[in-house]
């Protein structure tokens, strides 16, 4: 049954994107803190296990309590995301469900059960299980959350860099051809390391900032100092690791999503020996006239650095937006087709699929036409070149926000680490550092959310890179329905966020419980 006259309303796509962005953004407020605090509390409890000092148990329990307040809301916002693939992106679910569903199922079987089983032992088992079993449960809770991150990032990485699949015209979908390629994709490995280490950074900032608040108030000095030592050590390691993996991310994005890199850099016209932009007057709220401008105004740049970042070669070729639209020869000497050629190939693939299905023409020739052109399947739905260019201004500025704050955190943790190990950080003369740590809390989240937005806005309009644009991936829904659920989720999540922040603040104000010797 065809529905030739009923076109999908653009607002369905917009509202579906808005709802997914909303739930993902809220989810990502809570999850990095879960991942980061898991490391902090795991280290604190390990020290308690090794030393037997009750004050270390109090420290571990304090961080576990804050972890617990944040944990449930992260889980709650996560379930919406999983089911939204079906509710709002139903075509996507069929078109690539054969590949995408597997990581989600494995995440449930392998990670969620581990997390949910051992988190109960961690919260309620202090007096019911042995110290060793409790310690194992604490680490397994964090491990479960981390494995969960692995599988969902495998799924996300596959959307950005599809690998290990082939199109089957008999079933009208992409099907997995290599599980190892999907699960161990270099894009997934890097995305996992970058995301998890940036989450540790958030946990570390939170730990250091809360501890600094106690120092400002002249309370809980012992716990605060030891927590800062753990937090700053984890934080510096995480910041350096996030920097290294981020560098690798940029290299891979250049190879697999050149349009995203061009948008991140507002690089309209590329070439060899490209410089990395430090600042340029790019309007974040309007798409610049990339077609006729040579480059953004007031550009200040580091010579050759973009070529190094993108190709690991001082004189490497980096394509700009217009080069990608018009076609270019890449750094390996391979000619990359123009947008018009890609659209042509996409249309050929779609027409061949239609021929294969409707005309009963299941010849090898038709099958081959599909296979030869399927790489650009999604371009067959593109009617306007401008729709293949992501929002340049916002991608450009978010990228700078992420990198700038990431650099700040490296310096911040280096200073904190020096002070806490070499000086008495509780002294009043380090009040500026305590206040800086408190200011760093929102900055850490801004940094992390910016990173995600660069990754997701920068890959527009693709749900699956080059294969499925957003307007082909949606469900057949009324915009009104999605709009209502959008505002329901907005109201619910905002209320829950306010409650969580209020509870966290009160809990921090209350401080840790101090054990007596007889409570062991």
């Amino acid at each position, binding site marked *: 049954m065809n529905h030739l006259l009923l076109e999908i309303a653009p607002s369905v796509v917009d509202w579906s994107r808005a709802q997914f962005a909303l739930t993902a953004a809220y989810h990502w407020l809570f999850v990095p803190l879960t991942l980061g605090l898991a490391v902090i509390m795991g280290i604190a409890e390990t020290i308690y296990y090794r030393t037997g000092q009750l004050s270390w148990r109090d420290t571990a329990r304090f961080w576990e309590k804050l972890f617990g307040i944040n944990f449930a809301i992260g889980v709650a916002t996560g379930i919406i995301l999983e089911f939204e693939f079906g509710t709002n992106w139903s075509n996507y679910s069929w078109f690539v469900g054969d590949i995408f*569903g597997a990581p989600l199922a494995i995440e449930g079987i392998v990670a969620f059960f581990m997390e949910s089983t051992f988190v109960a032992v961690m919260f309620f088992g202090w007096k019911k299980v042995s110290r060793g079993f409790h310690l194992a449960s604490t680490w397994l809770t964090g491990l479960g959350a981390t494995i969960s991150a692995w599988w969902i990032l495998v799924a996300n990485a596959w959307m950005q860099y599809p690998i290990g699949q082939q199109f089957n015209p008999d079933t009208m979908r992409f099907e997995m*051809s290599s599980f190892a390629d999907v699960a161990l994709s270099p894009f997934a490995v890097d995305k996992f390391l970058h995301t998890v280490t940036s989450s540790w950074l958030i946990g570390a900032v939170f730990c250091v900032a809360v501890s600094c608040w106690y120092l400002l108030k002249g309370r809980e000095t012992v716990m605060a100092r030891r927590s800062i030592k753990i937090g700053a050590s984890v934080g510096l390691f995480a910041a350096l690791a996030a920097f290294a993996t981020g560098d690798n991310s940029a290299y891979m994005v250049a190879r697999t999503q050149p349009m995203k890199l061009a948008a991140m850099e507002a690089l309209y016209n590329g070439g060899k020996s490209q410089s990395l932009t430090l600042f340029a007057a790019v309007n974040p709220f309007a798409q610049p006239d990339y077609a006729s401008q040579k480059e953004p105004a007031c550009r200040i740049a580091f010579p050759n650095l973009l070529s190094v970042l993108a190709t690991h070669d001082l004189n490497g070729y980096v394509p700009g937006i217009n080069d990608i639209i018009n076609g270019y020869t890449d750094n390996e000497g391979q000619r990359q087709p123009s947008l018009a050629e890609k659209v042509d190939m996409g249309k050929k693939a779609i027409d061949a699929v239609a021929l294969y299905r409707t005309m009963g023409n299941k010849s090898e020739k038709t099958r081959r036409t599909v296979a030869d052109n399927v790489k650009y399947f999604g371009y067959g739905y593109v009617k306007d070149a401008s729709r293949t260019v992501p929002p340049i201004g916002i991608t450009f500025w978010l990228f700078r926000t992420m990198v700038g704050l990431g650099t700040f955190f490296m310096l911040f943790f280096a200073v904190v680490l020096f002070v806490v190990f070499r000086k008495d950080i509780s002294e009043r003369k380090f009040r500026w550092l305590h206040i800086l740590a408190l200011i760093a809390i929102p900055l850490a989240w801004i940094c992390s959310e910016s990173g995600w937005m660069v990754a997701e806005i920068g890959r527009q309009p693709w749900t699956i890179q080059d294969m499925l644009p957003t307007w082909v991936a949606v469900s057949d829904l009324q915009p009104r329905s999605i709009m209502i659920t959008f505002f329901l989720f907005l109201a619910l999540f905002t209320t829950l966020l306010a409650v969580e922040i209020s509870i966290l603040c009160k809990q921090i104000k209350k401080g840790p419980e101090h054990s007596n010797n007889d409570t062991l």
Partner: protein
Amino acid sequence: MITYSFLQHYWWFIISLLGGILVFLLFVQGANTMIFSLGKTSEERRLVINSTGRKWEFTFTTLVTFGGAFFASFPLFYSTSFGGAYWLWMIILFSFVIQAVSYEFQNKIGNFLGPRTFQICLVINGIVGPLLLGGAVATFFDGSNFTVDKMNIANSFQPVISRWANASCGLDALLDIYNVIFGIAVLFLARVLGLLYMTNNIDDDSLRQRMRRSLIWNSAAFLVFFLIFFVHVLVKDGYAYYSDGVIVMEPMKYLHNLFANPFVLILLLAGVVSLLAGIIMTIVKSGFIKGIWLSGFGTVMAVTAIFLMAGWNNTAYYPSNVDLQSSLTIANSCSSEFTLRTMAVVSLLVPFVLAYIYYAWRSIDSKKLDRQELKGGDIY
């Protein structure tokens, strides 16, 4: 020889088993519907909440895994049902979101909404979750109003392959009285299991006495609603398909399915007997507190069998009432052979997962919850 057909049947079995485990774990929701009716004092209400609060993640995780496994093994169902029955699923999800945070938030200092707000959230989830999940499962037998046309992918104007045939976004399922009846049956089953679980988990004489009394009428209500639905399913026409994939109506298809597969019949009978044995023994033997295990295993077996009735023996498990040939079967909606085979290997981890859940559960439940424990720090 592991054929494609075998893998389709295997994965329908895994889905059925997960469905069975999910319904069993709805004891959390069932118990939460009775927070105010069972808990006469705030201390008793906290006993109920702390009892279910140590298990809610299992229900939540099983629901997520059930969804993930359905996505991986039968993506066309995920695409058609979730995308079409939008409001039905959104309401279910919404109720689970408010449940997840309610335990942790309600009695914490700084909760400016007050504990009662979150207790009401638990009650809402307790009623809405089982009721709508039951209603959704009933559509496996009574059908839904959707169409599927994979050729739409090649249509640049309207590329969406699954469409709901009306503007209800799935709420039309609740206009079918039998879907509602099954939803109510699942709700009462969840309450029965909740009572059995709390009888086992809470060491408190006055609450146990009240729970035993409540168990009698909740069990009676469950049996009445379940039997009405079950007899309806056995005598109604079912959605059969043959080797050419064409779907036809077959009188008393589900009854035929039971007799065609003795394994399913035995599983169903054993499940019902075990479920009833747990209930009856708890009612008649005053010191008996292990009814949850008997009834729990019984529920898993019976619900698994009901799912198998819906999907095995050449039956369309997600029938369409507006376009019979759009109905989903385990053959036309499943993932590729490669994916099913790969996921089958992953599913071998399930016994290992169950083993550590059992070990951790036992460790936590070795000492029953009592009023004394509420005075300690590790509580909700």
